[in-house]
């Protein structure tokens, strides 16, 4: 599904991501963990095209996307969420989601001026897609609520829905469970399982080890920009390098 070969990103003299090769299988939950500053978010930014890598290759279903711009990568089916999602606070949840399907539409200024059939059809499609995504994340009841009136967990779900509205094949989730309570974390984990069940591939960065160990099919561990381990939760948990470099003395608590 997603294959990364010898990926390196230098910021000045600092290697934020250093010679990372990894393959994420389709229809799986893949987790990337590592201490703060390990290069996890940079790794996501490289895949989604926000940053251009210094060297290495990124293949999405065999297509080379290494030097593609962000919006192209999105059109090829890479959806993502951010640690914080800035949405239109005084607009409804649904209104915020409709634009998610914009990348699958073609209407321009002229269509707007003459209110063309194409525009009408595309707007209808975008609205339906938004409702579908909202239904998927279980927020249909909050459709008409302002974002400003949503809880942190609901915002997370809206961010998921927005990524889903782009019709992605793979979703990159950057700390999806940060700042939500344990029960809500459980709910978000269920949601990720549901995504996979519906044919999506999930990649996530997360610090909540309980959750990761419970849902991930594969874990990659980054430290100082380098991949120090990968494997199933069981393998990673028992890997001495990981315990040394990352879990350290917190090992018992984290596991």
């Amino acid at each position, binding site marked *: 599904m997603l294959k990364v070969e010898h990926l390196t990103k230098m910021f000045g003299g600092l290697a934020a991501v250093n010679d990372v090769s990894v393959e994420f299988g389709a229809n799986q939950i893949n987790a990337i963990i590592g201490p703060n500053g390990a290069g996890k978010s940079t790794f996501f930014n490289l895949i*989604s095209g*926000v940053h251009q890598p210094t060297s290495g290759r990124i293949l999405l279903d065999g297509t080379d996307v290494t030097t593609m*711009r*962000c*919006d*192209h990568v*999105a*059109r090829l089916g890479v*959806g*993502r969420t*951010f640690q914080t*999602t*800035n*949405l*239109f606070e*005084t*607009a*409804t949840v*649904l*209104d915020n989601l*409709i*634009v*998610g399907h*914009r*990348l699958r*539409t073609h*209407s*321009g*200024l002229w*269509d*707007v*001026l003459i*209110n063309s059939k194409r*525009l*009408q059809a*595309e*707007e*209808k499609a*975008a*609205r339906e897609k938004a409702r579908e995504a909202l239904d998927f994340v279980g927020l249909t009841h909050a*459709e*008409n*609520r*302002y974002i400003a*009136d949503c809880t942190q967990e609901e915002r997370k779900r809206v961010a998921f829905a*927005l*990524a889903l509205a*782009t019709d992605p094949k793979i979703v990159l989730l950057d700390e999806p469970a940060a700042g939500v309570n344990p029960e809500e974390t459980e709910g978000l984990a269920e949601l990720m399982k549901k995504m996979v069940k519906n044919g999506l591939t999930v990649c996530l960065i997360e610090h909540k080890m309980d959750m990761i160990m419970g849902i991930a099919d594969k874990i990659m561990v980054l430290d100082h920009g380098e991949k120090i381990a990968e494997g199933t939760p069981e393998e990673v948990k028992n890997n001495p390098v990981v315990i040394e470099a990352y879990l350290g003395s917190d090992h018992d608590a984290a596991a």
Partner: protein
Amino acid sequence: MMFKLGALIMHPASKYVLLALAVLFPALASNEYQVYVMATAFIWAIAVYGFNVITGYCGQLNLAHGGFFAIGAYAVALLTADYGWNFWPAFIAALVITAVLGFLVGAVSLRLKEHYFAIFTLCVGFIIYLLLDKWEELTHGAIGVRGIAAPDGFGLVNFRETIPVYYLILFFLVFIIWFTSRIQKSLLGRTFIAIRNGDDLAESLGINLMKNKILAFVISTTYAGLAGALYAGMIRFVGPEDGNILHTFNMITYLLVGGIGTLFGPLIGTLGIVWITQSLQFLEEYRMIIFGPLLVILVIFFPLGVSGSFLTWMHRKAQALGLGPKKVQQESKVNTAREVENNA
């Protein structure tokens, strides 16, 4: 009670009432000067609608906006006074010139983000002003341009008179509001708003940032050019002071007071402030003593402006009463809560 009043304002028929009032205004006004002030306010409102597209919807603070207004005005002024064009060809040329210049300036300046973009465009605005003031061979320099052609009338309609020109400007204002509402409701408007929410997120949604930002920029400068061209045709004198950066800041004030990023914010803000300024004329320079604190209070307590605060209040009230959403949905298939403000 308040809610019912609000619902009345948001009723679809309200916009026709508003239009009828605008049409009847010359008859209701006690003298021609009031009609003249209103026509000027309409011109500024058109420019503020443009400002709202790039700054309100797309989130890019373009401080060169007043400069494009001046370019539109000078285009008509110079083409009619110096080159003997009729008004309407010059008017079209003004739109084309501001659109093309908007494209060129946008393509360069939009490579910058946030404050850097604002500072860059502030400089562009000032350069435009300096060019108008100093490039005497082209712009006549500080003495300005006289002898500008009035819009050519037809039949008995003579646009040299205040009342016909008022209706001409009203026509363009209504067109601009209509067009802006189309943009705002459409996927294009949503695209602009997504960019305002954040470049990163918009890009991750597959939105081509540069293309859409430039489009919003060109739409906004063309609006400014349209307003400037009408201004030149009505006042029939332009000078470098029309390109003063102060006008940009006035427009920011109009937009903030009315409600940034809302459909009726520019209209409410511009008309409101122009008329308040008129009624405080007797205070001369001291009116800023009233204006300053008023603005500070408004920005602190009503950051969404008159229109934005009203819509938010109405939405929450409707949600609390549990009648808003269903009603809104029934009214139209392609409805949104934001769209309701068309009716405000």
